[in-house]
C-alpha cells in the first residue's frame, strides 16, 4: 500500500485553485463544528495538533462544548482511513470528538473503539454524527469490503446530486460529511440543504463556489491504490483503497432537475 498523501495541481489559467480549495475545506470544517454547536447533530470529530491546541481548546470551552480525546495518533500526510497510535517521540495529533455533553463524548469514544483497539460500532457512530440511516447502513456493510466506499458498485457515467458528491473528500471539500448510499440519496440531499444553509451564513460566496464545483463534471479514477480526480480546474491525487486488477472510474455529472 502506498504512503498516505494528497496532491492538487491546477490547470494552466487556474493557478488560484489550490489556495481556493484550502479556503473551501476550512469552511467545510467550520460548518461541521457549527452544526454541533447549534445542536443540529450530537458529535463531530476533531484533530488537534500541538500548534493549535490552545486556540481550539479555548474556543471549545467558550462555546460550551466538550472535547473528548480518543487517541494520540501518528501524524500522516493526506487522507487516511484509520488512526494509528503514535509511538514515543513520533509526531502526533489528538484524534477526538466534540459534543454538547460529556455523556455523548464518552458514547462516541466507546463506539469509536480506537482507544481500546476494538472494532468501531459504525451504526452508533453514524447516529451520533447525525447521518441518514440508509447511509449508515450502507457504510456499515461496505466499509469492511472497501475502506473508501464511494458507491462501490458503480462505475462509468454516474449522475447525482451535488449534496451527495464525495469525490473531493480527500481535499476536505463537500457539502455533507458522510458517504451517501447512492448518488441520488434523497435523505442526503435533505441533510445537505441544512448544511449548505449554515455554510452560506458563514460565507455565501465561498459556499456557492463549493456547490458549483461539486456540480461540475469530474472524473474519479481509482487504480493501484491511488485515486486521480480531474475537475475543470485541477487534478488531485490521494491514496485510496487499492484496485489491483482493474481500475474503477466514475464520470460524475450532476443530475438535471
Amino acid at each position, binding site marked *: 500500500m502506498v504512503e498516505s498523501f494528497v496532491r492538487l*495541481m491546477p*490547470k494552466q489559467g487556474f493557478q488560484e485553485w489550490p489556495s481556493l480549495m484550502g479556503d473551501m475545506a476550512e469552511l467545510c470544517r467550520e460548518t461541521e463544528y457549527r452544526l454541533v454547536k447549534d445542536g443540529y447533530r450530537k458529535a463531530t470529530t476533531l484533530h488537534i495538533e500541538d500548534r493549535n491546541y490552545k486556540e481550539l481548546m479555548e474556543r471549545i470551552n467558550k462555546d460550551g462544548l466538550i472535547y473528548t480525546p480518543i487517541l494520540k495518533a501518528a501524524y500522516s500526510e493526506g487522507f487516511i482511513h484509520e488512526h494509528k497510535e503514535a509511538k514515543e517521540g513520533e509526531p502526533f495529533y489528538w484524534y477526538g470528538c466534540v459534543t454538547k455533553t460529556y455523556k455523548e463524548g464518552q458514547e462516541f469514544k466507546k463506539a469509536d473503539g480506537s482507544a481500546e483497539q476494538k472494532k468501531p460500532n459504525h451504526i452508533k457512530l453514524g447516529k451520533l454524527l447525525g447521518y441518514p440511516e440508509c447511509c449508515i447502513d450502507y457504510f456499515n456493510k461496505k466499509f469492511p469490503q472497501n475502506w473508501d466506499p464511494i458507491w462501490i458498485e458503480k462505475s462509468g457515467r454516474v449522475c447525482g446530486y451535488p449534496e451527495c458528491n464525495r469525490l473531493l473528500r480527500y481535499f476536505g471539500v463537500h457539502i455533507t460529511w458522510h458517504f451517501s448510499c447512492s448518488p441520488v440519496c434523497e435523505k442526503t440531499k435533505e441533510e445537505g440543504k441544512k448544511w449548505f444553509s449554515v455554510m452560506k451564513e458563514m460565507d455565501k460566496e465561498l459556499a456557492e463556489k463549493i456547490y458549483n464545483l461539486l456540480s461540475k463534471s469530474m472524473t474519479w479514477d481509482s487504480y*493501484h491504490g491511488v485515486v486521480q480526480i480531474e475537475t475543470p480546474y485541477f487534478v488531485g491525487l490521494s491514496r485510496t483503497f487499492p484496485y489491483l*486488477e482493474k481500475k474503477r472510474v466514475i464520470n460524475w455529472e450532476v443530475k438535471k432537475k
Partner: protein
Amino acid sequence: MGLLVKPYLGCNIKCKYCYEGPLRNVKEPQLDYDLDAVVNTIRENKKTAPSIGLHGGEIFCIPNKHLEILLKETYKYGESVGIQTNATLIDDEKIRLLKKYNANLGISWDGPGELCSARPGTEKVGEIIDKVMSKGISVGMIIVVSEANAGTKAKREKLKKWVYKLSKEKGIDARFNPCYNDKELELSPKKRVSVYLDFAKFFLENDIRWSPFTDIIRALQNSKNKVCTFSGCDIFCTKSATSVMGDGSITNCMRTNEEFILLRDKKEYDTRLEILRETPIKYGGCKGCKYLEMCTGGCPTATIDDDWRNRTSWCDVWYALFQYFENVLKMTENEQLYSRDKKGDEKEKKEIHSHEDQTKPGGHGDYSAHINKLKE
C-alpha cells in the same frame, strides 16, 4: 532541474509522432506569449536550474527580435544556452545570433533521405548541420527511432551508417529516443526487441556512447547520472524538466500534457515507484523484477494502458537491454565496458569519469543541446 523555455508550442513541420501534437489538436498555438512574464520566470528559477534551454514547439518560429531577448537574458548568467530545434528555419541571421550569444544546438532529425520521412520538410537539415558546425556552433542531436527510419533491415543499415558518420566523422553525440507517440510509426512490439538489441550490439562494437544505451549501463552501475526515463520520474513534478510556458507559468515535461497543461507540483513524490514495487507484473507493476530500481518502471508517459500507475509499455525492450548490458558487464568483470584496446584502458577510464559526474542526475530525454558541450 533543467529549465526548458517554451514560449511558443507551435511548429512549422508538425511531425506526426510529436508528443505535443495532442495539445496542438486541442488548441492551435498562437504567437501570443508574454515575454516579460517568461523572462521573470527564468529569473526566479535560474538559481535552482543547472541548465537552461530554449525549446518549443519550434523556437525558431518566434521573431528574431524576441529570440534575441531570450538569448540575451540567458547569456547574462554566464553559461551557454542550448536550443532544441528542427533546424529547418536556421538562416544566416539566426547563426549570427547563435554565435553572438554562444548558443549551442540540439537538433532533432531522424536521418537523411527516406530516413526522415516522418519529419516532412527536413530534407536539407544535413546541410544545415554542416553549415552551423563549420561556424563553430556545437551540435547535439535527438534521433527518434521509428518505423520510418528503422522499420526494415535496409533502413536500419542506412541508419547505422549515418549514426557512424555522425559519431565518428563529425563527433556528434545524440539521444537515440524511441518513438512512442504514434501507433503507426512506433516500432511494433514484435520487432522492437530484436531491433534494439541489434542497435545495442552495433553501438557497443563501434564504441558509440549514446543514450539510452549509456544510460542503461550507468543504471546498472547504480549511477544517478542517467536519462529521465530511468530516474524514477514523478509525472506531476518532472525533475529533469521544468518547462516555462508562454504566460510565464511552470509545468512539467511536455509529454505529461495532452489535453490541457497541468501546472507543476512543487514537491516531488515517489508514489509511482511505491506502486510498481508492490504491484505484480501481471497487473502492470514490477514486483519482483530485478531491474526495477535501475529502470524505475520507465517513462511514466509511455505506459501500459496510458496510465502512469502502470510500468512502461516498453518493458520488453528495456528489460532485454538491461539483460544484454548486464551480461556484457559480467563478461568484462566491471572493466571499462567500451575499452577493447588494452593500451587505452586507463586513459579511457579517466576520460569517462572526468566527463560524467556519477552522482548528479542525468539529462532530459527531449533535450540534446548540451550533450556535446559536456564533452568539452
